């Protein structure tokens, strides 16, 4: 069942169109990452889904309810963390969470239980009696997340959940979201790439108010040309190795650095020794095997040349490149082109 259905969403501020015809679906229990540069329309889209902003056109359905016809039903099902955690500085963490729970319509006998649960999940036990204004940014962000969780909503919408946190806290928040994966349908926005990779099953890349790509991470990285990056360290440098790698089909770039001891190989498209990957270009599982194949072939080649393989690292972290390609590309690039 589709938990969230967004179709033909348009939002304009006067002559400026912040969101242009955004369309996507999210299945129950899915974790979807919203990716895009600042000002791409991520927050606007999220605000519209949560019902705090009305769109200029298009419709949003959450759990089968239309956001504009049954706003209360939709809002009961959504936990929302805006860019800035919506906290009252003069309240203590506990009283604030109790207030939010009641506001979200948690029945009186369940309020305490739900507050305890969200405090426990976000690990706020040590500060529960403190005033929120005296808490650090990281704790406030966690209070914000606790606030989104407190009504145990089916859908969680998190706008940049890790912004302003230190690396340890970022790791904690990511772990928390991992934990929440099964129970809730989650949409989270970010402009930090590793975040999406570590947390999301699917990404939607938005640029200038349009969806420029939508796929699983694997699918996305595989479909892009030059998506497989392999870093090799060898103990014996040699032109032979470089030449051998370059001669592989599908390898379209070998950059030797560090005096030839480190090589950066990029491969993609039609990979393999002749004929092997002939027809396998259409469905994404085939492409996935393709990139595996590329790594396999490269490894084989390195061993065959007896260069003394010390390290072979596959850089899946190529999302960055995809992202840049998609978001800095000229406007004229049609959204369907990548899709």
């Amino acid at each position, binding site marked *: 069942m589709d938990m969230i259905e967004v179709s033909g969403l348009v939002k304009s501020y006067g002559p400026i169109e912040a969101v242009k015809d955004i369309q996507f679906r999210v299945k129950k229990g899915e974790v979807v990452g919203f990716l895009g540069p600042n000002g791409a329309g991520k927050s606007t889209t999220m605000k519209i889904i949560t019902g705090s902003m009305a769109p200029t056109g298009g419709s949003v359905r959450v759990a089968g309810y239309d956001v504009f016809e049954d706003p209360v039903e939709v*809002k009961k099902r959504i936990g929302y963390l805006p860019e800035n955690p919506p906290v*009252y500085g*003069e309240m203590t963490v506990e009283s604030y969470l109790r207030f*939010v729970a009641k*506001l979200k319509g948690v029945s009186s006998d369940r309020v305490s239980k739900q507050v305890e649960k969200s405090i426990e999940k976000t690990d706020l036990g040590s500060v529960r009696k403190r005033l929120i204004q005296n808490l650090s940014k990281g704790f406030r962000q966690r209070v914000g997340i606790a606030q989104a969780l407190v009504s145990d909503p089916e859908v969680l919408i998190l706008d940049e959940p890790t912004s302003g946190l230190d690396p340890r806290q970022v790791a904690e928040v990511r772990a928390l979201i991992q934990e929440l994966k099964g129970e809730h349908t989650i949409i989270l926005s970010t402009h930090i790439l590793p975040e999406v990779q570590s947390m999301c099953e699917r990404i939607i890349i938005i640029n200038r108010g349009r969806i420029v790509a939508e796929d699983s991470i694997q699918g996305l990285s595989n479909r892009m040309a030059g998506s497989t990056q392999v870093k090799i360290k060898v103990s014996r440098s040699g032109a032979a190795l470089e030449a051998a790698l370059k001669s592989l089909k599908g390898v379209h770039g070998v950059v030797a650095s560090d005096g030839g001891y480190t090589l950066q190989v990029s491969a993609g498209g039609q990979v393999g020794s002749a004929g092997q990957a002939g027809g396998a270009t259409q469905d994404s599982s085939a492409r996935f095997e393709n990139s595996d194949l590329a790594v396999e072939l490269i490894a084989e080649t390195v061993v065959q040349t007896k260069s003394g393989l010390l390290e072979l690292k596959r850089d899946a972290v190529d999302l960055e490149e995809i992202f840049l390609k998609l978001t800095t590309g000229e406007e004229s690039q049609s959204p369907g082109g990548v899709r």
Partner: protein
Amino acid sequence: MREVLVIAGKDLRNLFMSPLFYSIAGLCTIAWTLVYFLGLQEFAEASSMNAMQGAGEGASLHFVVFTRHISLVNLVMIFAVSAMSMRLFTEEKRNQTMALLLTSPVSSTQITLGKFLAGLLAAWALIAVSFFYPASLRVFTAFDWGPLISSYIGLLLLTGCYVAVGMLASSLTESTVLSVIMSLIFNVMLWFIGALSDASSDSNVSKVFDHLNVGSHFVNFIKGSVSLAGVTFFVSVIVLMTFLTQRVVESNRWR
């Protein structure tokens, strides 16, 4: 209803936990105490003079002491309520907590009513304090409760108007300073609309303005008559201002 109470409860709690409320309450009581004490002393002197001259009781306690107290309470409330109601919406907007309210399963009407209720109860708490001044005199002397009670009913309704106006002002801006200034101007204007009746030569128009005269309605309450026209007038002002605020809150979604 539960939603309204939840929002009102939160706002009241935050107001009662803040130094703002107590500074306002402190300043109010200082002003009231000084003036009330002076008025009482004056009245005591005047009535003992009357008694010596054998001219009977003289002026009534209600019209000399209480009325003066009540008009001062009214004057002070214009400022006090403006200062208290400024936070109702501006604070939410500045804290970005408006997003929380707007994404919760509550309607704009419930948000507005919750806020109004919080402001109203806070203002009425101050009115209750001011009621102790005349009421405590009962220990020393007998007086008629009637006009005092009716004056206080008027006062409660009037402060309701101030709260509704202040709430509207705070919903219009993100700046607390601007909100206070607007609220003060609107509240003072409320008192001067009635004066426009003199400015118009058309007798029907001036009749309309006469009915909009806060002062003349309030005077009836002080005189001891709780008239339907008076109650209707104050309630209408409250309803109108609350309705306008609700529209402003609702419009947040469309911007």
